[in-house]
C-alpha cells in the first residue's frame, strides 16, 4: 500500500473494481429474488434515488452536518484524551486513581448515553458533539496511554547520558515513542466517531446522514435509506484511506515495518 509503485497501482485498482462488482452482483441478485423495492431496492433504483437526492440541496447539507459533528467531536476527544493519557502514563498516583473510572465507563456504548445527551443538550448539534467525542475518546485514550507506558527505559537513559533535560526528554523521546500508538488510536477513534454520529442523528438530530436515513425510512423511501448507508460507507472508507496516506508523513521511520 505504502510502496505502491506505478506498476502495482493498476492491479490494485483492478482488484478494487472487481471487489465492488462482486458486491453489486450479490446485491442485484438479492434484490431481484426478493422482488420488493420497499424491502430491498436494487442498484438501479438506488442510483435513481441518488440522482434525485443530488438534485436537491439537503443531501449536501446532511453530509456537511455529519462531517462537522464528527470532526468537532473527534477534535474534542483528541484534545482531552491524549494529554490525559500521557500524564496518566507518567504519573503513577494519577493512573491508580483514574484507571478504574476509565475501565468502568469504557464498556458503556455511546448509544446508551443518548438519553442523557438529549436531556442535557436537547436536539441538534450539541448532543451529537457529545456522542461523537465519547465514541472517539476511549480508543484514543487507551492507545495513547499504552504508547506513553511503552517508552523504552534505555532510550530515556541514553538521552540523559547525552545531556537531554526534562523538556527535551518529553519532546524528543516520550512523545515520538508514543506517537505510533497515538496515531493508531486516532485512526480507530475517527472510525468510531463516524459510526456514532449516525447513531446520534437517528435519534437526537434533525439533519445529517443519520437523520436522512431515519426520515426516509418513515416515508418508506428505502432507496434513499440505502443511498445514505452507502454514503456513510464511502465517506468512512475515504477518511481511513486519507489517514493511511498521511501516516507516512507523520511516522516516516515506520515505513519499512509495514
Amino acid at each position, binding site marked *: 500500500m505504502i510502496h505502491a509503485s506505478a506498476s502495482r497501482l493498476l492491479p490494485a485498482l483492478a482488484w478494487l473494481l472487481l471487489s465492488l462488482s462482486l458486491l453489486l452482483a450479490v446485491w442485484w441478485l438479492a434484490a431481484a429474488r426478493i422482488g420488493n423495492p420497499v424491502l430491498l431496492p436494487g442498484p438501479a433504483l438506488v442510483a435513481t434515488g441518488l440522482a434525485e437526492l443530488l438534485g436537491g440541496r439537503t443531501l449536501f447539507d446532511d453530509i456537511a452536518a455529519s462531517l462537522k459533528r464528527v470532526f468537532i467531536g473527534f477534535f474534542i476527544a483528541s484534545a482531552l484524551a491524549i494529554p490525559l493519557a500521557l500524564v496518566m502514563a507518567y504519573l503513577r498516583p494519577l493512573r491508580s486513581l483514574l484507571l478504574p473510572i476509565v475501565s468502568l465507563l469504557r464498556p458503556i456504548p455511546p448509544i446508551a448515553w443518548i438519553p442523557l445527551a438529549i436531556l442535557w443538550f436537547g436536539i441538534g448539534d450539541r448532543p451529537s458533539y457529545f456522542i461523537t467525542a465519547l465514541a472517539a475518546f476511549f480508543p484514543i485514550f487507551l492507545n495513547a496511554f499504552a504508547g506513553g507506558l511503552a517508552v*523504552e527505559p534505555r532510550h530515556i537513559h541514553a538521552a540523559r547520558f547525552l545531556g537531554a533535560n526534562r523538556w527535551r526528554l518529553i519532546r524528543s523521546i516520550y512523545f515520538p515513542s508514543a506517537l505510533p500508538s497515538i496515531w493508531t488510536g486516532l485512526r480507530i477513534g475517527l472510525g468510531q466517531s463516524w459510526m456514532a454520529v449516525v447513531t446520534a442523528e437517528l435519534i437526537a438530530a434533525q439533519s445529517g446522514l443519520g437523520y436522512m436515513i431515519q426520515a426516509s425510512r418513515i416515508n418508506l423511501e428505502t432507496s434513499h435509506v440505502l443511498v445514505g448507508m452507502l454514503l456513510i460507507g464511502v465517506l468512512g472508507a475515504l477518511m481511513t484511506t486519507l489517514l493511511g496516506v498521511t501516516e507516512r508523513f507523520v511516522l516516516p*521511520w515506520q515505513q519499512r515495518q509495514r
Partner: protein
Amino acid sequence: MPSLRIGPSPSLRNATAPIAANGPAGSAIRAADRASPPLKRGAISLRNVGISFGADRRRFALCDVSLDIAPGEFAAFLGPSGCGKTTLLNLVGGMLQPTEGTVRIDGDAVREPTPRCNVVFQQHSLFAWMTVLDNVAFGPRALGLAEPESVARALLRLVGLEDFAAAYPATLSGGMQQRVAIARALATSPDVLLMDEPFGALDAQTRSIMQEELARLRHTFAPTVIFVTHDVDEALLLADRVFVMGVNPGSIKAVIDVDAELPSRNRREHDSASLSLRSRVLGLIREESLKVFNR
C-alpha cells in the same frame, strides 16, 4: 583511516592522533580542548558497594565491591549470568543507586545519568524516529555544542557510515546500528564509556570487525571503558584489565592484568601465554557457573 579529536574532554589530550575534523567544528573543538585543565578524567572508584533487595534487605545482587579504574583504562567484566555485571555498569552510570557504599567518578558521587558518562547497550538503543545523523547529533545538540551536525558527520565518517546519515535506524543491519550507537556515544566525548555487551547480538564475523574498530576508536578518544561481556576472547583482546565476577552474592572474584600478562599487542595470535590465560579465565567462570547449578 582518518582520526579526530572531538569535544571538550581533556582525556582526548592523550590521544596521539592528529586532528582531522576540518572547518569550524574542528577549531571549536581545539579551543575547548585548550581551555580545560591538563588533567586526565574518568577515574572510577567503588567503595564497599552493594545492592540488596528483598523485605529484609539480606539478599544481595552485588556485595561489598571495591575497585578503582584509572582514567583511560579499558576494564572488561566477565562472569556467569546473574553475577551482577550489568548491575555494576548501571551503578557506574547512575542508572541504579547502591544500597551500600559509594560510587564515584573523579571524586564525585554518581547520582543519575549525566553526560560525563555515555552508554552503548546490546541493541535497539537508537532512537528509531530519528535519522542516523540526528541520533549522533542528539548529544551535541542537547549539550549546546557548536556545529552539532558537523561533529555528527565527522563521527559518522569515522565509523564509515557517512553515506547513511539520512537513513532511519530500522533500515540498517545490526552491526551498522551498533556503529551508530558507538558514534552517538562518542559524540559528546564522555570521560567514561559504558558498554553493556555491545556486540552480543552480532554474528561472529561482524563482531570481530567491530572489536577491531572499537580498539581503534578507543585509542583515538581514550575514554575510560567499562565493558560487560560474556565473551572471554573479546575481553582478553580489548581490555587492559579483566574483572571476573562471582555469584551468590555478586562480587569481584579475580582481577587479571592483561597488559602485564600479555605484553604482546597482537592478541589475536594464540601463543601459549594467551592460551593459558584464556583457559585460566574460563576455569574461573566455570567454577562460578557451577555454583549456580549446584545450589
